[in-house]
């Protein structure tokens, strides 16, 4: 293969081709099996180098984060692919609500509730944007609606709750999700603890949905996250994502009661906002015809009190 072919492919990789060159590359690739093979070799090299660089980078971050080993996840190396992290047993833990709040009254610990928009979904007119929230203090996500008691489920708090649909537009929603960005007040501490809890219930006691609470601390201002933030962060690490934690609970079949689950995470003091993610994974083989419900979301900052 001549050097022109190598050059053309590599400039394509770097985004340096003119429109005419891009058309020429496409025409040649269609006609030339060997050129396609070379092209695919280069693409494999590109991905492999990115992976090698990631391994090196994670190694460096692992060393940096070593003193913080008690954290659920701090540093980019652990933010790499939550599924992988979950498999390694890094991020998961479950606290029932009594345990979440059990330590709050500990001597010398001060708990401050952080402002969550509509934590109990009491505003029946609350609109819910699709996708990732465009700004702080808004609920956004998949198809859902504020409802009163229905389907044998009564709200956990107040008179309303949020119904997470398991079907939308005639199709199953296997993983209904909800997000809110919460601005974090300035902290004088290097580290502070944040608690996130929420209650879930299912209208279908024969199913065994997996309830998930995740939180991501970010050192960017809320308005800079952008609508694609979560999609990017699901599997791709980024610098501003500085701590995260996840907890989950597989609701056993037959359990129609509210399940309160929560997490506690250590967050660097420079974190400017917290992205809270609440979701329900349906079993792929479930009928997923009945909705799930969410209520009583609470986010708190826990700091050591100055009182001895």
């Amino acid at each position: 293969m001549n050097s022109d072919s190598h050059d053309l492919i590599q400039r394509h990789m770097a985004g340096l081709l003119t429109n005419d060159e891009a058309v020429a590359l496409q025409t040649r690739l269609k006609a030339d099996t060997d050129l396609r093979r070379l092209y695919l070799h280069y693409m494999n090299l590109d991905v492999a180098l990115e992976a090698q660089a990631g391994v090196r980078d994670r190694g460096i971050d692992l060393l940096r984060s070593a003193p913080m080993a008690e954290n659920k996840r701090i540093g980019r190396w652990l933010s790499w692919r939550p599924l992988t992290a979950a498999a390694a047993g890094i991020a998961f833990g479950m606290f029932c609500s009594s345990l979440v709040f059990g330590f709050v009254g500990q001597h010398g610990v001060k708990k401050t509730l952080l402002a969550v928009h509509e934590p109990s979904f009491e505003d029946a007119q609350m609109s819910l944007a699709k996708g990732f929230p465009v700004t702080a203090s808004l609920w956004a996500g998949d198809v859902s609606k504020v409802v009163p008691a229905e389907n044998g489920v009564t709200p956990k708090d107040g008179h309303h709750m949020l119904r997470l649909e398991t079907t939308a537009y005639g199709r199953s929603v296997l993983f209904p999700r909800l997000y809110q960005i919460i601005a974090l007040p300035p902290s004088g501490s290097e580290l502070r603890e944040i608690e996130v809890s929420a209650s879930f219930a299912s209208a279908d006691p024969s199913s065994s949905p997996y309830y998930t609470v995740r939180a991501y601390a970010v050192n960017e201002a809320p308005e800079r996250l952008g609508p694609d933030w979560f999609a990017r962060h699901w599997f791709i690490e980024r610098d501003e994502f500085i701590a995260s934690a996840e907890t989950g609970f597989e609701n056993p079949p037959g359990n129609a009661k509210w399940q309160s689950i929560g997490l506690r995470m250590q967050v660097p003091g420079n974190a400017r906002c917290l992205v809270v993610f609440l979701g329900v994974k349906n079993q792929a083989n479930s009928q997923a015809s009945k909705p799930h419900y969410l209520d009583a979301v609470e986010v708190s900052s826990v700091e050591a009190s100055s009182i001895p």
Partner: protein
Amino acid sequence: MSPPSEHERHAQFLRHYAESELALHTFVRSLVPTRQMASEVMQDVILVLWEKFDAAADFQGWAFGVAKNVALRHLRRQARDRHVFDDELVNQLADDAVTLVPVHDEHREALERCLDKLPASQRELVLTAYTKGTRMDELASRRGQTPMALYKWLHRIRQALLECVERTRAQEEHA
């Protein structure tokens, strides 16, 4: 037989996905014009894979099909961009990519040895260039180079690495 629990399904998915991840990423990267777009497509691919995962299926074949469809969906949004491949070429690349999976596995294995053959400063530079968040103009500036000079250097290194991995693979085949 009872269906797998969520945790079992999760574990099965992770095992399959881990085995195919780099091959899938290479495939997606070959279909889209930039590494960033490849990352974006991969995020959608893995979500679809997880949502529709069936442990009984031929995972890799199915996953390549999903990845092609997701990539095509992304590409169609930018259909006017001449840097974006049309469906005909995407399908050709899809067919070729599947047959090259074992070759590319060997290339990736050989890459580490080939990187080790580079002088430490060059190895460090190429990995820095590939580290997420690295801006080529800033990296070039730090080195007192123009961005174009850095790109040309990277071209030479990549070509040398590709020749090295192919040579290594050929030697191992004949060994």
